């Protein structure tokens, strides 16, 4: 089936006095695997439910395949939603759950049986038709929920935190399966999550939301490498952020920050204005013990080790630089011991790894 586009134009929603969504404008391309990412309370689930039709008193428009569906009730929108709790009906078997949407569409019984069998095979649950949800594992229940939705061959697939109820290992496996399934079916999919790793590994594009506002839309790499504001920078991946003022003098660029003190920045950089923030990722920092020579085109900070966490692939150090803590992720080579607390170290960050955030 041909995939369709989903578009939101100036959508806003309030519950009583609380403004939950503010002026959302968004466009999802046909066949795209799109994520709504944000902390709890950001409005992402509300937005998803709105697309499904469960909150219809919004302002603005919701368009599916170019048609405004804002006034259409959920049972006629032809979008398939997989709920966070799966919402499987305990009084029905797996097969009955899966067949529900088809029965509502009044398809002939043979057709229903065929499609149910097909969709259960798709999610690899053949043989469990007569079981009841209470007899299935968490992973199996989730697959039934997906199968139930796919059975009606919806235009759009909406997934509300589908992985949050699974344990860690299953989560990784399932998100890979979901990605493969989506590509295979080529169905426009919108995926809500609070876990940035999930969003980044599976989706084509991500919209980061906070407090009902879309902060940034882009591919995972765009969001990671070029965050437009403090929130996105902190939410997608980890980051060191410091506020201060920039001054140019005699060919040098100085950054004065109450947190990390006076720092010389590579002169080639273009700060956003007199005031702003600098951001650099922990893994982009080169950490050396002692006080080696400065390298051209790098920012240089000195400090002492205050703490460490061993994460396997790298060592995460907390380095006290002037009045602030800087987080450094140092790749761990086998056998290399960690540096003890109190060791004086030098942190170097290449110019291209330094981002600026305005204001």
């Amino acid at each position, binding site marked *: 089936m041909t995939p369709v586009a989903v578009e939101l134009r100036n959508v806003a929603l309030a519950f009583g006095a609380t403004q939950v969504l503010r002026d959302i404008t968004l466009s999802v391309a046909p066949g795209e695997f799109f994520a709504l990412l944000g902390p709890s309370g950001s409005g992402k689930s509300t937005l998803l439910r709105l697309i499904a039709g469960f909150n219809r008193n919004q302002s603005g428009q919701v368009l599916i395949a170019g048609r405004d569906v804002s006034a259409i*009730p959920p049972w006629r929108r032809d979008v398939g939603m997989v709920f966070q709790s799966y919402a499987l009906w305990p009084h029905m078997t797996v097969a009955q759950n899966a067949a529900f949407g088809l029965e509502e569409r009044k398809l002939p019984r043979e057709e229903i049986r065929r499609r149910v069998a097909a969709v259960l095979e798709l999610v690899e649950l053949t043989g469990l038709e007569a079981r009841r949800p209470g007899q299935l594992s968490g992973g199996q229940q989730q697959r039934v929920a997906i199968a139930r939705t796919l059975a009606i061959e919806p235009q759009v697939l909406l997934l509300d935190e589908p992985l949050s109820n699974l344990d860690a290992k299953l989560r990784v496996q399932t998100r890979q399966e979901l990605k493969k399934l989506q590509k295979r079916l080529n169905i426009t999919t919108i995926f809500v999550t609070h876990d940035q790793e999930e969003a980044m590994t599976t989706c084509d594009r991500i919209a980061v939301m906070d407090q009902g506002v879309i902060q940034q839309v882009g591919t995972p790499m765009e969001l990671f490498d070029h965050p437009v504001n403090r929130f996105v920078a902190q939410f997608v991946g980890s980051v060191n952020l410091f506020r201060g003022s920039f001054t140019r003098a005699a060919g040098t660029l100085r950054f004065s920050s109450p947190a990390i003190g006076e720092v010389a920045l590579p002169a080639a950089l273009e700060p956003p204005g007199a005031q702003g923030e600098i951001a650099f990722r922990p893994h982009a920092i080169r950490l050396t013990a002692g006080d080696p020579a400065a390298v051209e085109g790098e920012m240089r900070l000195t400090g002492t080790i205050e703490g460490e966490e061993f994460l396997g692939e790298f060592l995460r150090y907390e380095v006290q630089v002037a009045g602030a803590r800087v987080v450094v992720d140092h790749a761990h080579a086998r056998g290399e011991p960690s540096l003890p607390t109190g060791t004086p170290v030098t942190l170097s960050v290449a110019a291209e790894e330094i981002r600026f955030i305005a204001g």
Partner: protein
Amino acid sequence: MTRVTPGIVVIALAIAAFLLAFLVVPVVTVVYTAFSNAEGGFTLAHLRAFAEISLMRESFANSLYVAAMTVLFASLLAVPLAYLTVRFRFRGAVVIHTLGVLPLIMPAFVGAAAMQLLFGRSGSLNLILNDAFGFTVPLMEGLNGVIFVETLHYFPFVLLNLAASLANIDTSMEEAGQNLGSSGVRLFRKIVFPLALPGYIAGASLVFIKVFDDLGTPLVLNVTNMLAPQAYLRVTSIGLEDPIGYVICVILVLFSIAAMGGSWWFVQRRDFAIQTRGGVSAPRRRLTPWQAVLAYGWISAVMLLVLSPHLGILLLSLSKVWSFTVFPEQFTLAHFATVFEDSTRMIWNTFLYCGLAALLDVVLGTAIAYLVLRTQLPGRQLLDHMVTVALAMPGLVLGIGYLRTFRGVDLPLIGPLTASWLIFVLAYAVRRLPFALRSCMAALSQVHVSLEEAAENLGASRWHTVMRVVVPLMMGGILAGFVTSFVTAAGEISETILLTSRESLAPMSYGIYLYMQSIAGRGPGAALGVIAVVLIGLGTWFSHRIVASRSPHDVPGEKT
């Protein structure tokens, strides 16, 4: 788990003895009498005699009919209200909750007398209808009257159970159905109602049993061709020897057990542990204007109906003359004066009996809860089961059982047991014990074992641990159980009518019944009824406050 010590065994045996003596033996006596002949051997002759008497067959059919119709009408009242409260957002929700409680604070038989004046042949409603339209509605004629009064009194059981059940359904279940194309009545029928069914069945079966067993309402309404009144009338006027009365008791008990067991089995089979798993639950839907009109209209109508016995009894207590008019003519406070002059004894009796019974209940309840949840005593579940049996015992049966079993039993200081105040305390305590036990069990299961273990680790003996740690932590549940026992015992009439041998021992409920037997007494009877309702209402409110602060998922409607 605490070790089984001789002390625990003694307590368990004492409780078992109590239950045996005051619950099991009387019931067994009743059953035995129904099936034994003059020599003491087994016989089905009485059962046959019962089946041969057309009046008995008729009474049986009538009781079934009345109970079934009450369930039907109660459902008609309750189902829309339950759905409204749970699924929609509107200001009337508090009203519905009140509606759910109001009927339960007035014992059905008290309101029945007032209902005659409002809805009877020449009652207010029919006078108006006749004047305006020339026809009357036989709302209170014969069995209709019983059905009407019982429906208004018992529909909260269905309402509260169903509402709780509906509220427990994860809204995503409904939304999933909507997402897949279902809506409206179809959605309700295929998804919502099946999931709410266990709650509905629990409520409906409770209503069925209570109406089937009810003695007070048919008596006050002059309906004698039902099983419970027949048993009462036969035992009192023909005598305690009359075997047919006992056959009726056996039937009542069998049906009670069947209904309870059936409901339990059904709930177990369909027990879907439905829990919200943290999904964003939908805000309640708004009502469309058309829906709002219907909703508020329905609620107002039900509200009026539900308040009518309360209103009626209030009017009756204040009226001098109320005959063949829509409203009473002259008002007076004389009835209240009469009551306070003459009936302080009865009010005191109610407090005494119900207070002692409630106290006994929470003591037993706590002890049994502790034995079941905290010890490994073999056979402790048996105590729990014995108490559950009390739920299925109609008050009438227990009353007759007591009269028969303890006939001639003379206690030192107290005198003949069946003619003393003690029999009331025992009868009330035994029948309210299941609810008190449930409260205590719930309260105790919320006290983590580690709290007791910490006390014992610090040197407290078991007894001290219980007294200083466990009981204080359970206090909310104990209090709630106490108040519930008290309040339901205060309104109880079935056992009371049978056990009251002399006026000076009568509690308020009997007093009301007695007053209603004379023309000049209906006013004071209504006044006493008002006092009883206020008392019960206060107690219920108080109990709700304790329950609400303790646990949000209790279903108060199952207690009475």
